[in-house]
Structure formats: structure tokens, C-alpha cells
């Protein structure tokens, strides 16, 4: 995920070229050495691209506060980017590029608002010069208001509960991650027009629902924050256990989610669940390198080489969990999951895992948010803590659960428990069924391999 920022819909002049990064190449000023000029231009473009990645969210956030909607804010920000791509290769990157972009975008925002005002005035036939100048001053202060609040406002808007889950994810990656539609499409293995559609629809929905650019308070904030955390964790999970395709993990998506989580934790440090989510992601990400075998096959938690776990991320994760618990959030849904993850992180070998504690933590999760998936996870822990027969009893109770009807991990877990109980024939059938239910190729291969192993064990044992 390294390609450049996408072009604005409005900037039709970029359409003729390869993309925004091609503009400056054509407009490059004459100089003595064409080779050196091209190299300098390419360097300026790479720098501009990097600056966009750093600045775009803040830029869009500051503008969204003023113009009120994400769509317009994004267009204004991208217009400023196009201007930068035209001017920086020739004039050099300014000393404070973020301020330059904001200044340029601000001028355009002024123009836009003035045009809107003029239009209103024409319609309503009122024209007071005074009002206009006052508006100008207010606009100026509005743009320079607290950047953190702006960013938070943008996050809450992009993750607004009024939006469909897919739309929230796409819009968040686009306006907060600075990713292009192409990059998002590639990350989620869906066609580019699908993502473009989701983003367009999301912006329209926000406008139609008159969603205000603000940091919600009270009860609304609770629901909004839950939605934000859900979006970040969805992005993380798509990277952590890809639901489709040939890669078992896509670390770039995990990193993007982690970055968003870390930013959010700094923006609202008093919210325990944000730290809980960050803790969960840090600890899970610490296993990324160990989760993939030499030929890209998945390596499950208990089979992983723990020496390959990332100690830095574990340390960061445990610290974030401490923060969540210190804020009184030990029983939050993310903090609980992080606590479960921490049990694994703290165990030097798989055999040392504190399974009874994990069962207790799953009990707490189940009480908080009962779901068949949680029950299934609890069953695994019970199987480890109190023997496979106890685990199997719980799994068997879930077999007719409609929500798990096509969930591949149900037969996978069942197969595992049956295998431990020596019921190989049933185990084979379960693993084959699990394999038929997943679209992720490496995972399917692993499950089929398990079935073959069980069949072999049946022959020999």
C-alpha cells in the first residue's frame, strides 16, 4: 500500500495524465540537465506523496469542520494537493508543507463559501457586506481550531452508525488513512468500482442524514465510539485473518488499523476501551510473523514458535491493557479480549498457558455480549483447561446454531476435539466440512491437511 494519493473528481485536468503524480512531470520547468531535472521532480513527487500521507487527515478534518461535509472537504484538500504537485517540483517543497497545503485549501474554502453566500444572497436578495467579513474572520479561527478535535470529529463522522459497515471501513481508510480507492480495493480484494460506490454512497448518506461535524457527547458518544472501535477492529481483522484470497495475513491492513488505534488513544486517552482495543491489536499483531509458515501456510497459536513473537508489541500491548484496567475498564469487551490475548502472550510455552483464567475471561465476555462465536471460543478454552470431552459437550450444543451454520471454525474446532478423543472418522468429516466452508486458500489447505492426518492416524492407530 504505497501508491500515491488519488485525484479529485473535480480536477479534470489530472484525468488526461497518468494520475496526479504525472502533472508535475509534464509541467517541469526547463533546466540544463533533463536527467537531473527528472530525478529532482521524481524526488519532489515522492516527498509530496509522503507529505499527503502525513497531512491529509488533518487537512480534511480542518476543512470538514468549516464546510460541514466530508465530500467537499476531501475535494478541497485534493485540489490543494494538485496545486502542490504542480508547484513543488519547480519551486521546491516549502518549509512547512502542511501549513502550505492548509493555506491553499483554506483559500479555496473561502472562495467556495463566498460563492455559496452569493448564491444564497441572490436567491434571498439580502446582501450585507458586514456579514461577509465577519464570516471570514470566523472561518479563519474555525480552521485554526484544535487539530485534535478536528481529527476526532472526522473519525466520528467517517464511522457514523448511520453508515453501513462496509462504507464506514472504506471511508475511514480513505479520509483517515489517506489510502486511494485502488489501494482499498486491493486490500479487500473487491473491484475498484465497488469501493468507489461505497465511498460515494457513504458521503451521500451522511449529507442526507444531516450528520453534523462534531465530537458527540453523552449517550450518543457511547454508541459512536463503539462504532469507531468496531471499524478499526474490522480493518485489523481483515489483515489478521483474511476472509478470502491467497494470503493468510495482510500485515499492511493491520498496521493501518494499529496506527488509527494509537492515534485515537492519544486523542481520547480517558476512554478505557480505546486502550483495550489497542492492547488487543498490539498483542495479536505481535504474532503476525509467527502465524505464517515458510510456504505461506497458517500456523495456529499453539503451534507457533514463540521466539518469533514481537516482544516490543507485546510490551506495548500489555502497557495498553494496564491503562485500560487502570481506567476501570477491565470488563470492557475489548479489554477482556486483550486480557485473553495477554494470557497467551505471557506464557513462555503453549503448555504454560493459564487456560482456567482464559475460561473465566470468556465467561465474562459471554456475560457481557453473549454470542455463539464467543461460546465456541469458550468451548476451546474449556477443552484445554478441563479436557476435550468437556469442550466437545459445549461445541455439540452449538451445532444447530443458525449463526454458525456456515462458520468454518465450528467444524474445525469440533474436528480438533474429536481427534483428541480418538474419534478419527468423525474428525475427518468435520475437517473436510470446515475446509469446504472457507474461502481463504491457505486456511483451506491447512484444514484439508488436518483431515488427511486424521485419516492416517485412524489407519495406524
Amino acid at each position, binding site marked *: 500500500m*504505497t501508491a500515491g494519493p488519488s485525484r479529485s473528481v473535480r480536477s479534470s485536468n489530472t484525468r488526461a495524465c497518468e494520475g496526479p503524480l504525472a502533472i508535475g512531470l509534464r509541467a517541469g520547468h526547463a533546466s540544463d540537465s533533463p536527467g537531473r531535472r527528472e530525478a529532482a521532480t521524481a524526488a519532489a513527487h515522492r516527498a509530496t506523496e509522503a507529505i499527503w500521507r*502525513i497531512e491529509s487527515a488533518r487537512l480534511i478534518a480542518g476543512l470538514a469542520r468549516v464546510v460541514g461535509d466530508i465530500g467537499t472537504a476531501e475535494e478541497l484538500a485534493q485540489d490543494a494537493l494538485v496545486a502542490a504537485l504542480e508547484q513543488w517540483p519547480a519551486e521546491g517543497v516549502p518549509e512547512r508543507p502542511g501549513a502550505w497545503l492548509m493555506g491553499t485549501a483554506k483559500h479555496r474554502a473561502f472562495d467556495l463559501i463566498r460563492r455559496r453566500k452569493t448564491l444564497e444572497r441572490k436567491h434571498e436578495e439580502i446582501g450585507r457586506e458586514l456579514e461577509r467579513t465577519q464570516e471570514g474572520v470566523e472561518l479563519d479561527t474555525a480552521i485554526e481550531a484544535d487539530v485534535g478535535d478536528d481529527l476526532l470529529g472526522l473519525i466520528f463522522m467517517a464511522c457514523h452508525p448511520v453508515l453501513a459497515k462496509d462504507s464506514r471501513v472504506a471511508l475511514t481508510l480513505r479520509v483517515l488513512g489517506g489510502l486511494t480507492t485502488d489501494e482499498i480495493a486491493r486490500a479487500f480484494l473487491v473491484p475498484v468500482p465497488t469501493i468507489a460506490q461505497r465511498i460515494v454512497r457513504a458521503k451521500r448518506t451522511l449529507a442526507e442524514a444531516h450528520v453534523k461535524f462534531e465530537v458527540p457527547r453523552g449517550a450518543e458518544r457511547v454508541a459512536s465510539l463503539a462504532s469507531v472501535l468496531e471499524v478499526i477492529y474490522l480493518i485489523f481483522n481483515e489483515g489478521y485473518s483474511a476472509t478470502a484470497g491467497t494470503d493468510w495475513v495482510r500485515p499492511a491492513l493491520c498496521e493501518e488499523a494499529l496506527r488509527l488505534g494509537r492515534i485515537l488513544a492519544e486523542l481520547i486517552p480517558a476512554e478505557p476501551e480505546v486502550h483495550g482495543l489497542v492492547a488487543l491489536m498490539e498483542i495479536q499483531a505481535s504474532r503476525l510473523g509467527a502465524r505464517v509458515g515458510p510456504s505461506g501456510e497458517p500456523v495456529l497459536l499453539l503451534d507457533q514458535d514463540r521466539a518469533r513473537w514481537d516482544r516490543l508489541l507485546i510490551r506495548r500491548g500489555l502497557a495498553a491493557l494496564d491503562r485500560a484496567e487502570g481506567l476501570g475498564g477491565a470488563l470492557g469487551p475489548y479489554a477482556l479480549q486483550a486480557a485473553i490475548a495477554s494470557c497467551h502472550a505471557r506464557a513462555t510455552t503453549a503448555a504454560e498457558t493459564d487456560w482456567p483464567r482464559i475460561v473465566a475471561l470468556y465467561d465474562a465476555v459471554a456475560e457481557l455480549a453473549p454470542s455463539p462465536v464467543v461460546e465456541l471460543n469458550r468451548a476451546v478454552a474449556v477443552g484445554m483447561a478441563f479436557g476435550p470431552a468437556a469442550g466437545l459437550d459445549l461445541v455439540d450444543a452449538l451445532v444447530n446454531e443458525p449463526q454458525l451454520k456456515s462458520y468454518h471454525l465450528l467444524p474445525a474446532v469440533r474436528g480438533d476435539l474429536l481427534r483428541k478423543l480418538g474419534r478419527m472418522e468423525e474428525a475427518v468429516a468435520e475437517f473436510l466440512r470446515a475446509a469446504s466452508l472457507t474461502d481463504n486458500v491457505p486456511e483451506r489447505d491447512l484444514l484439508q491437511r488436518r483431515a488427511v492426518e486424521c485419516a492416517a492416524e485412524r489407519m495406524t492407530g
Partner: protein
Amino acid sequence: MRVLIMAKEGEQSAPATPPTPEAMAEYQKFNDELVKAGVVLEAGRLYPSSQSKRVRFDGKKRTVIDGPFAETKELVAGYWLWQVRSIDEALEWLKRAPYDGGTFEVRQVLEYEGM
């Protein structure tokens, strides 16, 4: 990707003058900005290399050598571990650092394949 930012010691291996409170405040402000942007994973400063030791391997032989060392320009005085999306992003962040002297080296950390 992860990058390691290394601050080089400069000509002398001991810091000539301690940084002024203003300089420290500037640095703190910059570091805070990096943390808020989710960039910093870890940061650390090292004691001067005059207090460092080296272990040289030669077949089965190990030799411990005490500092200071001659080639001080190559010595690391402090480090940052950053999470960024490209080397260019790291460079753009680094250029914003409030330093008026010294050299910093930017190295990508080798991680799992397919990044």
C-alpha cells in the same frame, strides 16, 4: 514498515553542552506530535561511547575493548523506532525535527516477508 532513526554522535563522544530547556521543550513538542500521529514505537538515548565497550570475535577468541573509539562519527547517540508507510514518510517527519546540527540515519528494519 519500521524504520530505525539513529542520531550520530558528532565529533566528540561526550555531549559538549547540555541542551537548553527551550531546545528540550522543542524536542518534546516534536516527539509528542510523532506519538500523536501513531509513529513512535520506541525511543531511547545512549550514554556516550566513551563509556561503551566492544566485543571482537576472531574464530574462538573474544576480545573486549573499552571505549572511547576513534571513529566517533559513526557512533550512535540515540535512536527512534518508527512505524511509517514508506521511507519517504520517515524522511518527511525527520525533516521537521527541531535540530540545528548533527546527522541522522534512517534504516528500514527487516520484517516478515510480503510487507
